[in-house]
């Protein structure tokens, strides 16, 4: 009856410290998908609406908008938002593929996560070149 004397609940960590765990790249891509989505909601949508309005109302406001966008801080914000949009879109496409049972096995899923992460940064680099 020795087996019954053992505690049923094995000692396990009480909590998981997300910062102490080395996250697989798919997890990083996933949390960045969420973070970029939150950023697009908080900053992206108002910035988009403001930009469309300013650029459409009159040639003067269009010029003012272009002048604002020449400021380094505005360019930095635009670049971060561009990355957020690109990463969110690519990670979303990866989700759609996984939904369709494409690339579900672990090596493929790891490869696609790396692909999304790197392609997102490369396309953002293109935007940066275009901005500066």
């Amino acid at each position, binding site marked *: 009856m020795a087996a019954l004397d053992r505690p049923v609940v094995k000692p396990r960590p009480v909590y998981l410290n997300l910062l102490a765990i080395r996250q697989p790249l798919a997890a990083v891509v996933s949390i960045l998908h*969420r973070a970029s*989505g*939150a950023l*697009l*909601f908080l900053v992206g*949508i*108002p910035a988009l*609406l403001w930009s*469309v*309005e300013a*650029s*459409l*109302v009159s*040639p003067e406001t*269009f010029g003012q908008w272009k002048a604002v966008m020449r400021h380094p801080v505005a360019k930095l914000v635009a670049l971060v938002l561009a990355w957020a949009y690109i990463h969110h*879109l690519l990670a*979303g*496409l990866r989700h*759609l593929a996984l*939904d369709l049972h494409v690339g579900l096995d672990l090596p493929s899923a790891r490869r696609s996560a790396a692909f999304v992460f790197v392609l997102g940064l490369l396309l953002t680099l293109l935007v940066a070149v275009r901005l500066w």
Partner: protein
Amino acid sequence: MVTSVQRAGGAHYGWRDWLSQRITAVIMLLYTLLILGVVLWNGGLDYTTWTRLFAGGAFRLATFLFMVALMLHAWVGVRNITMDYLKVAWVRLSVQVAVICVLVVYAGWTLALLWGAP
């Protein structure tokens, strides 16, 4: 207590939101490709090209479709975030109501931009 027969309960909005999140995503993807194509075709956009684009009814409609998809997509996404991190009911509800209000204002802003008085 676990009874012998348990039905999976719930409000059943999960699958609907899951589907709508994907449909709105595809709508936004197509619009993004459209804009990208227009920008690349024109080699950048000046004021004249930009406003002429918005003069077209079809483009306005496509833009409106994109914005509606964006608001719905943002709602499902942000609501998921609140459900994961906001554990106190009244805090969660308050934030969700605030998010809905903001999104409705954005939708109104979009309507005013596209079809409002110049």
